[in-house]
C-alpha cells in the first residue's frame, strides 16, 4: 500500500491506558507536563481519565491520585492544538460522567463495551452523538469473536450514532492477519464516512505491525502511547509507529523528534517499572487476557503465593473479560487453597 500523504490520526493513550501501570497515580503536574509535550509534538488527540475510564475510581480498579474532573479540567485548558478524549465503560461510568466530561470541554467520547455487548452502549453513544461530540464505539477484546460477529456489533454502535468504530485488541493477542480480516470487513460494510480505529497492546511485540495492518485495511485512527506506557506490555509505542509512518511519508502532523523526546524524557522517567514484554505480559498476549489484569495478578500472586502467570492462564481459561479484576483475588485464593 502507498502511505504517501495518507492522513492518519494518532491518538495518545499514556495518560489513560498508562494509568494502569501507574496504578492511577499520575499527578496533575505530570499530566500537564506530558500532555503539553504531546501537544507541542503535534499529537492531535490525547486521552485523559482513570485507566478504566470515567467513573473508574473504585476499590476494584484502584482509586486515582485525582478525580477525572480534576485531570480533565487541568489538562484541557492547557492544550494549544491537541484535543482531549475520555473513555467511558457503561456498567462502570454513567451518562452523568459523560456530561461532566463534555462540560469540561472534551472533544471525543469513546464508549467501550466488551465486543459482544454493544447494546449496553446505546444511551451513552446516543447522548454523546446528540451533544455533537466526536463519538467513538470501542469494541474491546475483539479477538474473542469472528470478524462477522464484530461487524454486527459495530453496526449497532454505528446505528446509535458513533462516527468512528474501534477494533480493540485489549489482550494484545491479535496477529496482523486477524487485524486485517476484521478491519477489512468493517470497512466494506460500515458507512463510508464512519471512521475506523485500532487500539493495540504490545504483549506479543506486534503493536506496530498490527497498527500497520489496520491502516492498510482501512483504519485511519490509531491508538498508541508515548514510550508505550499502557496496560500489559503497554500500547503500541506511539513514537515508534510515528517514525514508521514518517518513513512511509504518511501525513500524521507529528514531529517525530519532539515525540521521541516526550517519550524519552517525560514518560520513561515516570515508569514505576519498565513497561515491557516479560513473562507475565507475554502470557497476556499469548493466552488472550485483558491487559490491565497484569498488576492485579502480580499482587494477588505475591499475597497468596501463586505464580502470577498461573493466575493469568486461569483467567483466560475462565473467559474473563475487561472489568473482572475482582475475579483475580478470588481465583488466586482458590488456587492457593487447592495446593
Amino acid at each position, binding site marked *: 500500500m502507498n502511505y504517501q500523504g495518507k492522513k492518519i490520526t494518532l491518538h495518545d493513550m499514556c495518560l489513560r491506558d498508562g494509568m494502569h501501570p501507574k496504578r492511577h497515580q499520575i499527578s496533575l503536574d505530570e499530566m500537564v507536563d506530558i500532555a503539553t509535550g504531546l501537544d507541542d509534538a503535534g499529537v492531535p488527540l490525547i486521552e485523559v481519565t482513570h485507566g478504566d475510564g470515567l467513573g473508574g475510581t473504585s476499590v476494584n480498579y484502584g482509586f486515582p491520585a485525582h478525580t477525572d474532573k480534576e485531570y480533565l479540567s487541568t489538562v484541557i485548558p492547557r492544550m494549544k492544538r491537541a484535543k482531549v478524549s475520555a473513555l467511558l465503560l457503561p456498567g462502570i461510568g*454513567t451518562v452523568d460522567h459523560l456530561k461532566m466530561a463534555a462540560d469540561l470541554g472534551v472533544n471525543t467520547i469513546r464508549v467501550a463495551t466488551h465486543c459482544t455487548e454493544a447494546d449496553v452502549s446505546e444511551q451513552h453513544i446516543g447522548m454523546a452523538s446528540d451533544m455533537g461530540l466526536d463519538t467513538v464505539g470501542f469494541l474491546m477484546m475483539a479477538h474473542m469473536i469472528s470478524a462477522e460477529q464484530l461487524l454486527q456489533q459495530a453496526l449497532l454502535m454505528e446505528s446509535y450514532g458513533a462516527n468512528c468504530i474501534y477494533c480493540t485488541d485489549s489482550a494484545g493477542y491479535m496477529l496482523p492477519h486477524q487485524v486485517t480480516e476484521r478491519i477489512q470487513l468493517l470497512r466494506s460494510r460500515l458507512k463510508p464516512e464512519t471512521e475506523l480505529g485500532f487500539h493495540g497492546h504490545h504483549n506479543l511485540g506486534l503493536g506496530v505491525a498490527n497498527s500497520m495492518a489496520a491502516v492498510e485495511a482501512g483504519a485511519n485512527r490509531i491508538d498508541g502511547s508515548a514510550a508505550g506506557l499502557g496496560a500489559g506490555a503497554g500500547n503500541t509505542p506511539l513514537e515508534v509507529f510515528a517514525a514508521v509512518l514518517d518513513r512511509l511519508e504518511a501525513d500524521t502532523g507529528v514531529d517525530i523528534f519532539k515525540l521521541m523526546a516526550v517519550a524519552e524524557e517525560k514518560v520513561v522517567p515516570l515508569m514505576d517499572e519498565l513497561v515491557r514484554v516479560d513473562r507475565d505480559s507475554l502470557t497476556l498476549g499469548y493466552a488472550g487476557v485483558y491487559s490491565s489484569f497484569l498488576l492485579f495478578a502480580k499482587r494477588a500472586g505475591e499475597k497468596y503465593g501463586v505464580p502470577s502467570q498461573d493466575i493469568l492462564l486461569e483467567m483466560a481459561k*475462565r473467559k474473563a473479560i475487561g472489568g473482572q479484576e*475482582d475475579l483475580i483475588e478470588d481465583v488466586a485464593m482458590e488456587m492457593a487453597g487447592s495446593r
Partner: protein
Amino acid sequence: MSKKFKAAIIGPGNIGTDLLMKAMRSDWIEPVWMVGIEESEGIKRARDFGMKVSTNGVDGMVPHMKEDEIDFVFDATSAYVHAENSRKVNEQGAIMIDLTPAAIGPYCIPPVNLQDLLKEGRTPNVNMVTCGGQATIPMVNAVSRVQAVEYGEIVATVSSKSVGPGTRKNIDEFTRTTAGAIEQIGGADKGKAIIIVNPAEPPLIMRDTIHCLTKDEPNQERITESVLEMVKQVQKYVPGYTLKNGPVFDGNRVTIFMEVEGLGDFLPKYSGNLDIMTAAALRTAEMYAESIHNGDIA
C-alpha cells in the same frame, strides 16, 4: 394455615413465569392471574398451569380483582408502565411488589429491611431494587451492622444471556439504583455499583464481589460471623447463594466473594441474578401475608 393469599403476576415473560413456578409452591401465596398484553408463549404456559389470564393488560384483570380476592400483584414488566399498573391495582386494595427499576415504593432487601417495612404496616408498593442489589446488599449490611462502613462497592458479573433488552437499554439505571440502595439499605456512607456482562459459553453463574471500607479497623471475628449468618438468611429463599471466598481483610478493606446459582425453575440455573429477584419478591409477599394473617398488619 387455612387459606392462602391470592396473587397476580403482570408480565408473562421469563421472569414472570419463573415467579409463577415459585409461587405455586408457596405456603402463603396462591397465584391466580397472569397478565400480558397479547397472546404469547408465556400466557399459554400460564393457562396450562391453570391461571386466569388477561391479554389486555392490567385493565383486563382489574374488574375481577375484588371478586378473586387478589391481595398481591407482582409487576415483572418495565419501569415505564409500572406506575400506572401500581395505581390501578392499589385502587383494588392489592399490595404491589415491584420487580422493575421504577422504585416508586420503598426498597426491599428481605433479610435486611423487610421486618422494618412490616412494622410500618401496610404499604401500597415495595420495590425489589435490582438483581445486583438483592445479591450484594445483604453482605454490605452484614458488615455495616457490625461497624461503620464508609464506602461500599459491589461488582456483579452476570452472563450475557441473563441480561434482557430492558436492562441493556438503560444500564445506568442498574448502577445508579444499586449504588443508592447500597447506601440507603446497605448502610454504607457512600455506595458504588459496577456490572459486567460476560458472554462466555457455557454461561457463567452470577458472581458478586462486595468490597466494604470500614471506618475503623475491621473486627474480623464479628464481621465473619455476621456474614455467615446473613448468608444463611438469604439461603432461606435462594439456596444457591454461596460464599465462595472471604471475608478477606486487608487494612480497612473487607471483601466478600459470592456466587448465586438459581433454582432453575423456569430460568436456567446460571441466571442466579434473575432467580434472586423472583425469590426475593415472593419472599416479600409471603412475609406480608404472614403478618396480615397474624393480625400484625391490617
